[in-house]
């Protein structure tokens, strides 16, 4: 059932399109930089952007930086919002439950699948960036934000760590999406609601007057993954991010469980 559920997701055309679009982002960025001839001036564009021409591996980090505010949350919202509501909408939920698959078990299976999707989506961006970057630009030792250099292998490892942190950053949103998904039989509604949460968090995070609220926002520490490119790694913000995500996951997983296990399945 675990594997079957994962297979179900990745066999779906929609999922593949999502992953392709995500992978296309760092590729498009790398190609655009290459075609523009001269590299971007230092300090311009998104973080790590000015480094691409020196070292192709930075395309992966640029990819993560550009997709994290919108594309990745959108993809996660679609998959998480669909998790339960999609089955309800198709009517397959009633057959799974009468098979019987225990409701708690089904929720855990769905959560696992959504978690795996968060990682696959993030790594699709990172790996596509690495490949495109290393084809289009020279690669070599990685200069950290602090100025010293890491070997290519160590640098790539840091980029992998960054991708893991980005994937973990998405779990809070995924949990919210799954909770909303248990509230409705309309997957589109659940997806839209989840995107709404991400957008709202982003907006609130941009309002200076709300600085007291911002440390508690889901998206506030999202870009902390860049701190792995310091030496030594600057863990403070990263850990705060993991804390926020962890608390969100626990709260909304509990809410989703309590809702789903007591729900009348009428779809």
């Amino acid at each position, binding site marked *: 059932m675990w594997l079957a559920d994962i297979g*179900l997701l990745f*066999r779906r055309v929609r999922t593949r399109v999502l992953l392709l679009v995500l992978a296309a982002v760092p590729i498009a960025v790398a190609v655009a930089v290459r075609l523009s001839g001269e590299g971007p001036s230092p300090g311009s564009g998104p973080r790590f952007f000015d480094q691409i021409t020196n070292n192709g591996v930075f395309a992966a980090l640029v990819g993560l930086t550009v997709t994290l505010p919108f594309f990745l949350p959108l993809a996660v919202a679609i998959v998480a919002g669909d998790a339960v509501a999609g089955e309800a909408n198709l009517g397959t939920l*009633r*057959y*799974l439950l*009468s*098979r019987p*698959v225990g409701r708690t078990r089904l929720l855990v299976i769905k959560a696992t699948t959504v978690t795996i999707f968060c990682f696959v989506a993030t790594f699709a961006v990172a790996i596509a960036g690495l490949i495109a970057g290393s084809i289009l630009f020279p690669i070599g030792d990685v200069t950290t934000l602090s100025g010293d250099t890491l070997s290519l292998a160590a640098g790539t490892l840091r980029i992998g760590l960054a991708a893991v942190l980005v994937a973990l950053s998405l779990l809070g949103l995924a949990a919210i999406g799954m909770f909303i998904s248990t509230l409705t039989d309309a997957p589109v509604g659940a997806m839209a609601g989840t995107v709404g949460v991400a957008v709202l968090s982003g907006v609130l995070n941009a309002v200076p007057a709300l600085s007291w609220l911002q440390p508690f926002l889901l998206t506030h520490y999202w870009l902390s993954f860049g701190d792995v490119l310091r030496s030594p790694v600057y863990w403070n913000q990263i850990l705060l991010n993991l804390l926020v995500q962890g608390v969100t996951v626990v709260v909304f997983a509990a809410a989703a469980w309590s809702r789903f296990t007591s729900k009348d*399945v*009428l779809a």
Partner: protein
Amino acid sequence: MSDLAIETTGLTKRLGHTAVVDQVDLAVPRGSVYGFLGPNGSGKTTTIRMLLGLIWPTAGSFRLLGETMPAASSRVLPQVGALVEGPAFYPWLTGRQNLRRIDAAGPDGQRKTRAARIDDALTKVGLAAAATKRYRAYSLGMKQRLGLAAALLRPRSLLVLDEPTNGMDPQGTREIRNLVRELASEGSTVFLSTHLLSEVEQLCTHLGIISVGKVVAQGSIEDLRGRGDAMLRVETEDAGNAAQVLDRLGLESIVVTGEVVSAQLDGQRPEECNRALVMAGVGVRSLTTDRRSLEDAFVALTGEGFDVAG
């Protein structure tokens, strides 16, 4: 081992203030083909949803295959094949992939026999040729067949089939009926919810009639057909006298139409009626009795024909 495959006691489901299912006591004997008959909106599907653990009863309790539910769900439900409110599958998977998914879900995996069981089920419902087609491309009848195949993936002690011939052409309908008969002859209990009397008359050994959430009659087909009286029909030139004689015997609803007198027998034997008529000097040209059809019984019991219950 209980001799009832389904047994409900005071099963009730309220949605808001209305009782969609109201104090339902079902008794479905093992080995029977039980027709669960009712107009649209009478609570059939809601009852089935409760039996399968999809919704929680507001009150009452039920047992499936002799075990208290929903406590024994994980033991009992694998022995129950169900088709509820039409088939439902993933459009982007093929028929076979869909069956694999539903079979792999849940306890009691039996992975080794899966491929063979899936092929068997597909063959039984006549879908073997379309097994590798995506569900998206199936016609309504094929979808219904795949739903039945899913219900037949394992040996089932009980099959709960909700309107199984919905959307089927006449040929398909006949195949499904034969399939149900075959399953019953192999010893499965079949709980068949339908609004089609013809389906009940052709298939069922037992019948429960539900109307506006309440079971208004239940029993073997023979019992239900017999219940409610047969009609007596007398043809005579002396209709007025005949009516008086029958009235004295205690027959009810006597109607005289020209030279025909009809009345409800109400427990009287036709032989007695004939004797009394002849003794009273009535010249009887013909005397017949008419058993009520199942349809008459149904309409009399639900009182509303096939209209959607408000």
